[in-house]
């Protein structure tokens, strides 16, 4: 069988094809009632998978975690100044 020629350049955003959520053993769960919307969690997330979104029932931006890519590193929970994010087992 002939070895296929592998193209070395890939289209931008193709890293989204590699979902990394299954690497996780713990998942961050945010309590929006405690959250003050400071967005520190979104800034420290190494995978940029926390987005600050205006939820309908709230006047402040709140974090929404994308569990397709969240590896469960817990940086968000560690850095949250009001302890609104809890790590719960996820396996």
């Amino acid at each position: 069988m002939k070895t296929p020629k592998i193209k070395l350049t890939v289209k931008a955003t193709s890293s989204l094809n590699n979902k990394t959520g299954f690497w996780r053993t713990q998942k961050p769960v945010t309590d929006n009632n405690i959250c003050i919307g400071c967005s520190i969690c979104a800034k420290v997330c190494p995978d940029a998978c926390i987005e600050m979104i205006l939820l309908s029932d709230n006047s402040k931006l709140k974090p929404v975690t994308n569990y397709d890519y969240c590896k469960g590193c817990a940086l968000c929970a560690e850095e949250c100044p009001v302890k609104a994010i809890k790590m719960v087992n996820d396996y």
Partner: protein
Amino acid sequence: MDKQKQILEGSHAIALTIKNIGPAVVSAYPITPQTHIVEDLAKMKANGEADFEYVRAESEFAAASIVLGASATGVRTYSATSSQGLLLMNEVVYNIAGMRLPLVMTCANRAISAPINIWNDHSDVMSIRDAGWIQLFAADHQEAVYQHILAYKLAETLKIPVMVNVDGFILTHSYEPVLIPNATEIKKYLPPYKPEDESYLDPEKPVTLGAFFAPQHYMETRENLHDDLIASLTLIKKEYKKLTRAFSIQANRTDNGLIEYYGPKKPETILITLGSVTGTIRETIKNNKKVGLLQIKVYRPFPAAEIIKSIKAAKNVAVIEKAISLGGSGPLYADIAASAANKKINLKNYIVGLGGRDVTVKMITQIIKDVPKKNAYLKFIGQI
């Protein structure tokens, strides 16, 4: 057209050739014995004689990374280094080949520390032998000039980086009459570099280069590079022929760009070597009816079949080299031994000239006398 030979220092001849080839970006960190090459290029830039970007770097790792990045944007690039500099570049050297960037780099071959030593041998280049670069070895100034032009043609055609090896001091700091083709002549043989669409970084058409490759793809990238290197042996021969025509090079009939044989038609003994020691061996055997010389000009890809064809009729073969895989043998010897495994040849390995030790006619004569003897297959020849 200027057909006048000039008396030039090897480094200056290389720098003039690079200027005429016209890279867009040059980056290097000075290291003996490569320094004069990049000093000359910096001077040309400062004097307004060349219009490439000369990017100063804080280390060889940075210099290699700068030319990698520049090459990834689809332009012609150049760098040069030696010894510890090449070792510091090692990681980037592998990346350049893995990313299939058509970079050309000169290695002014020098020994490796410790003990610290600034003189010539081939230990530096042998440390990146397996990185996936095409490795050319020049015997004299003129050959170095033409190999640099050939290097860009090969690199840009094959998308494989090429290293031109010149012996430190012996070639870089000595003066010889040499002909430097001008920019117009070079352009006829080597047209301006146009990278393939979507193979380089362009903000208008964004792509990722150097991405993560999982087990289902990585192995094929290595196999592709290996196959392309092996297949390039044919192209190198073809391109060398074109080069000799384009620049009216008086090449011997036994010189195909990969290897060159010098000596009697039916030699009893053949000496094989890389680089400038070729000159000393030629001088030693010029009146010898039984001893021939095989100069390897392209070490990677390894022209195994060509070499075997040239040596199979000889009784004795001596591989004379300026490097040692410590605890193994000379790297060139190992390659030839693997290729000649089923041939009845008395194959011996002589390590010479490490750390700049002069290789003399007397030493070569001693080797010629020693080859037919039944004794150790590997010897260091340093004293007479």
